[in-house]
């Protein structure tokens, strides 16, 4: 048994930073989009593009709790997770539980759809457009803008579900999932088996960040 009070890193600092920047970013994108502040919407959109690329890359090379291959759960595991929820049984999971992984994949997919359609979107008056919109026709740009609007509603629904789930864990199971997303740590005693603390090696962080910057730079270079 590990010593009482020992803590284990569940979320590396880049995942946490990504998460909270995303919260701010999505809120800002919603606001600027609704208010028609399209200059800011475009700038912030490029930052979000960078964040998403970072996270997708990190899903390939990052530590266990960030890595996509570790997040893919078998249907059996997902069903067991659902049964535990229904039976009000709670077993803290090191990282995303199988249902949480599904939610994360869905949100990342919705976010990727948002930023990629936004790059090519054109407004109905042909006055405002994403940085790569000059590469597509007016009709295609309009279609992508419609998808951009619809997928935002999907994203909002997924975010609502995410927040409701966090609240449910707090109220039903007295498990505060927000704190570890801020501090990164959970008590080792939360887990049935001792867990190794995560490692986020600098070279990999640098590679993911460089990829993100390269994509954003590429968009700027092509779109001008």
């Amino acid at each position, binding site marked *: 048994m590990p010593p009482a009070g020992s803590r284990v890193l569940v979320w590396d600092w880049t995942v946490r930073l990504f998460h909270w920047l995303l919260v701010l970013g999505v809120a800002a994108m919603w606001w600027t989009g609704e208010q*028609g502040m399209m200059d800011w919407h475009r700038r912030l959109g490029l930052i979000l593009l960078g964040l998403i690329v970072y996270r997708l890359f990190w899903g390939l090379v990052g530590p266990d709790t960030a890595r996509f291959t570790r997040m893919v759960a078998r249907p059996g595991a997902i069903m067991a997770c659902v049964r535990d929820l229904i039976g009000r049984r709670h077993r803290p999971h090191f990282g995303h539980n199988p249902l949480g992984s599904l939610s994360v994949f869905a949100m990342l997919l919705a976010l990727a759809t948002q930023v990629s359609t936004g790059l090519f979107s054109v407004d109905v*008056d*042909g*006055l405002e*457009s994403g940085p790569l919109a*000059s590469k597509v026709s*007016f009709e295609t740009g309009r279609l992508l803008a419609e998808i951009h609007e619809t997928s935002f509603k999907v994203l909002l629904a997924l975010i609502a579900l995410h927040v409701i789930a966090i609240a449910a864990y707090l109220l039903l199971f007295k498990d505060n999932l927000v704190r570890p997303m801020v501090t990164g740590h959970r008590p080792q005693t939360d887990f049935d088996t001792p867990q190794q603390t995560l490692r986020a090696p600098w070279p990999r962080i640098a590679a993911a960040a460089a990829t993100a910057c390269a994509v954003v730079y590429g968009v700027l270079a092509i*779109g*001008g």
Partner: protein
Amino acid sequence: MTHRQIPFAFAALAGLALLGACGSGDAPAAADDAEVAATPLANGLTAAETVAARQGHLKAVGKAFKTISDGLKESEPDMAAIQAAAASVTFETAGMADWFPEGSGPASGVKTDALPVIWETRADFDSKTADFKAAAATLATVAQVGDIAAITEAFKATGATCKACHQTYRADD
């Protein structure tokens, strides 16, 4: 009813229900709307024709604006394309004064983003469309000269007149 017939009967019922659903909702109003929609308005067209025509023209304007906007982003803009697009805007909007006759709003039953307030504050609406037409004419003239900075400025000014009007008079904005 035999066992085999049940799926057929069910499918037929479902089909009928679907057909019914198409008409339901605004079914009682549909007859009135159809009558209203078929009556020629002040411009000689029906409400449906009027809405279709102005939407067609405005979509063409949107397309032309995208051509200009894309062109101005290029390091070496295709001047001929910009000039043609700018000219097409004045051409497409030549008849704008007749695009919004009384009875071509949403009350006609035709799907339109034109808000009823157009006909409540008509003088203001007309002055806003006049602003647009003046700005678009300037844009077309400036485009012929071919100075990028001047075109950019004239394009911005034209876009501002679009927004000024759409803000108040178009839904979903």
